[in-house]
C-alpha cells in the first residue's frame, strides 16, 4: 500500500469550484424569469474568484492541492486534485465564462412581457453546467467520477447546440449526441476493465500499480478512442461543424473554446498521469498523425466554406490537431522529465490561446451576423469599417490562430516547432508550417473581405452593443497577451508532477 492521500490546506476550494455552479443550476430552477440572469451576475464573478484562489494556492504551495471527499480516502473514496495544468485550465475556463456571460447579457435577456422565456433560462443554466462539468473534469482524479463529469458536460453541450430550435440545429444536436454517447460508453468500458485489473479507479494509485499488459492497453485504447470522438479529432470530427456553427454565438464560443478541450484534457490525464510510460512510440505517432490529418483537412475545408461560422468551426478541427503533437514530442522523452520539455509548455499554451482566441472569434462572428442578418462570407464586404471593435477582435484572435507574433498562438506553435527539431521528428514540423499557411489563407481571406469594399452598399445594420464588442475584444487581447508571459511561468504547468 502506498501512502494515504490526505486533504491539503486549500483543498476545500476544489469542492467549491465544482459545487458553486451546481448551486447556481439548482437555484435557477426555482428562480424564474429575470432571477436567473441576476443569479448569473453573482455566479460568474464568484466563480472567477474561486479559480484565481485555486491558482494562487497551487502556485504558492508549489504542489498539487488535494481534497478527499467525505474523508474517505481512495481507493474506496474519491479525491479531487488540482495540479498546475488543472489550475491553469480552470483560470482559462473562468476567463472565457465571464467574457461569454458579459457577451450573452444582451442576447439572452428576459423579455419584459413574459413571466419566463425559454432561451434565457436554458442558456444560463447550461452555462453553469458547462462550468461545473469542466471544473469537475480538470479536478477529478477518479476514472468513474470523471465519467460523470464527462456526461455532465455532454448533457450541457447538446441542448446548447439546438437552442435556436431550427430543424438543422436539432439534426446537428442529435448527431453530436450519438457521437458523444458512443464516446462515453467506450470510455466507461475502459474504466470497467481498469477496475477489474487493478481494483482502483484513482489515477494516483493507478500510476503506481499499472503494468503494460494486454488488458491495460485494450482498456486505455478504448478510453482514448471514446474521448477522441468527443474531442472531434479527425476522422471523428464530422459532428463538429454543424454543431458548433448552429449554436447561438455565445454557445459556439463555449463549445469550441472549452467543451472539446475537456475530453482532450482527460486523454492527457490517462496517458501522462494514470499510465505514465505506457504510450508506445507507435501509438504516440498515430495520435500525432491523426492530429496532422486534422490540421491539413480542417484547414483545407475551412478555406472552402461559404459561411463565416462554419469556417471558424472547421478551423477548430484544425487547431485541435496541434494539441496531439504533445504525445510524441513530450511523451517521447524519458519518463519523469516529459513535462520539463518545451513541447509540454507549447501544447498547453496552444490549448489556452486557442480557447481565448476561438471564443473571441465566434463572438465577433456572432456580432457580424447579428448586424447583417447573415454570415455569408462573400457578402461581408466592408463590414469591418462599420464595426471597428469587432473587426479588431476578429483580427487579433485570427493572428493568434495563424501564429503571427506577438501572440499566444505564435509562442505555442514555435515551441512545438522547436520541439520537433529537438526530438528529431522533423516530419511534424512540415505539418505545423503548412497548417500555419492554411490558417493564414482562411483568416486573411476573411480579413480581406471585412476590410474591403462591398459590391452592394451595406444597407441598414442592426445596432450592436459596445459592451458585447468589448467582451470579444478583451478575450482576443488576452490571447495576444499570453504571448508576453515570461517563459519562466511555464514552470507552473509542471506543478504536481
Amino acid at each position: 500500500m502506498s501512502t494515504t492521500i490526505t486533504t491539503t490546506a486549500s483543498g476545500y476550494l476544489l469542492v467549491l469550484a465544482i459545487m458553486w455552479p451546481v448551486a447556481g443550476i439548482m437555484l435557477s430552477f426555482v428562480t424564474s424569469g429575470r432571477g436567473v440572469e441576476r443569479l448569473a451576475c453573482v455566479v460568474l464573478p464568484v466563480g472567477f474568484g474561486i479559480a484565481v484562489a485555486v491558482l494562487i494556492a497551487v502556485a504558492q504551495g508549489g504542489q498539487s492541492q488535494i481534497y478527499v471527499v467525505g474523508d474517505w480516502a481512495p481507493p474506496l473514496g474519491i479525491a479531487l486534485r488540482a495540479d498546475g495544468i488543472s489550475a491553469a485550465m480552470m483560470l482559462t475556463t473562468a476567463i472565457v465564462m465571464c467574457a461569454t456571460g458579459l457577451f450573452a447579457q444582451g442576447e439572452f435577456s428576459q423579455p419584459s412581457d413574459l413571466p419566463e422565456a425559454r432561451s434565457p433560462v436554458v442558456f444560463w443554466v447550461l452555462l453553469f453546467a458547462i462550468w461545473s462539468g469542466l471544473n469537475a473534469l480538470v479536478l477529478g482524479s477518479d476514472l468513474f467520477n470523471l465519467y460523470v463529469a464527462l456526461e455532465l458536460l455532454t448533457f450541457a453541450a447538446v441542448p446548447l447546440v439546438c437552442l435556436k430550435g431550427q430543424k438543422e440545429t436539432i439534426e446537428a444536436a442529435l448527431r453530436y449526441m450519438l457521437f458523444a454517447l458512443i464516446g462515453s460508453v467506450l470510455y466507461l468500458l475502459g474504466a470497467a476493465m481498469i477496475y477489474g485489473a487493478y481494483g482502483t479507479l484513482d489515477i494516483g494509485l493507478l500510476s503506481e500499480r499499472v503494468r503494460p499488459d494486454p488488458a491495460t492497453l485494450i482498456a486505455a485504447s478504448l478510453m482514448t478512442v471514446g474521448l477522441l470522438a468527443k474531442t472531434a479529432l479527425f476522422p471523428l470530427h464530422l459532428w463538429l461543424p454543424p454543431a458548433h456553427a448552429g449554436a447561438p454565438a455565445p454557445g459556439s464560443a463555449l463549445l469550441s473554446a472549452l467543451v472539446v478541450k475537456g475530453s482532450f484534457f482527460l486523454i492527457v490525464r490517462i496517458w501522462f498521469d494514470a499510465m505514465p510510460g505506457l504510450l508506445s512510440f507507435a501509438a504516440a505517432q498515430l495520435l500525432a498523425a491523426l492530429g496532422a490529418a486534422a490540421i491539413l483537412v480542417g484547414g483545407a475545408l475551412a478555406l472552402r466554406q461559404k459561411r463565416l461560422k462554419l469556417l471558424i468551426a472547421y478551423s477548430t478541427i484544425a487547431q485541435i490537431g496541434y494539441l496531439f503533437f504533445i504525445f510524441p514530442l513530450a511523451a517521447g522523452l524519458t519518463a519523469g522529465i516529459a513535462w520539463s520539455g518545451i513541447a509540454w509548455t507549447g501544447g498547453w499554451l496552444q490549448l489556452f490561446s486557442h480557447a481565448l482566441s476561438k471564443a473571441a472569434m465566434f463572438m465577433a462572428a456572432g456580432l457580424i451576423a447579428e448586424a447583417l442578418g447573415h454570415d455569408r462570407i462573400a457578402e461581408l464586404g466592408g463590414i469591418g469599417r462599420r464595426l471597428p471593435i469587432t473587426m479588431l477582435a476578429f483580427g487579433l484572435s485570427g493572428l493568434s490562430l495563424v501564429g503571427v507574433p506577438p501572440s499566444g498562438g505564435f509562442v505555442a506553435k514555435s515551441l512545438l516547432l522547436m520541439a520537433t527539431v529537438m526530438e528529431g521528428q522533423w516530419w511534424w514540423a512540415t505539418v505545423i508550417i503548412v497548417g500555419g499557411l492554411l490558417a493564414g489563407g482562411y483568416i486573411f481571406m476573411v480579413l480581406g473581405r471585412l476590410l474591403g469594399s462591398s459590391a452592394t452598399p451595406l444597407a441598414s445594420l442592426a445596432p450592436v452593443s459596445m459592451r458585447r464588442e468589448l467582451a470579444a475584444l478583451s478575450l482576443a487581447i488576452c490571447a495576444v497577451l499570453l504571448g508576453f508571459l515570461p517563459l519562466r511561468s511555464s514552470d507552473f504547468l509542471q506543478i504536481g508532477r
Partner: protein
Amino acid sequence: MNSATLFGLCSAALVGLGLFGLIVRPEPLRKILAFNLLGSGVFLFFGVVARRGAAAGLGADPVPQALVITGIVVSFSATALAVALVLRLRKLTDEVTSGLGAASKAQEDGDHS
C-alpha cells in the same frame, strides 16, 4: 469456466452487437435502442468484475454495483434526451414536407429570432 466468465463473454457479444447496430442502423430510434444494448453490455461487464471480486462475505464487490446503478440512471437520461430530439426533429420535418405547417413554422421562426 464459471458463471462470471460466461456472462463476461455474453457482455462482450452484447457490446459488439450494440456498437454494430449503433453504427449501421440508419433510423434514429433504432440507434437509441442499439445504444441501450451497448450500454447494458458494458454494465454487465461491470457486473462480472463485481462478481469476481466477491469477498468479505458478499456475493459481489459493492463498488462496481453502485457504479452500474449510477450508470443506468445516466443512460436513461441520455435515452430520454435523445428520444425528445428525435421526436422534435420528426415534427419539424413533417411540418416542412407537408407544407401544412408553413404558417406555424413561420410563427416558430418568429419565436426564435
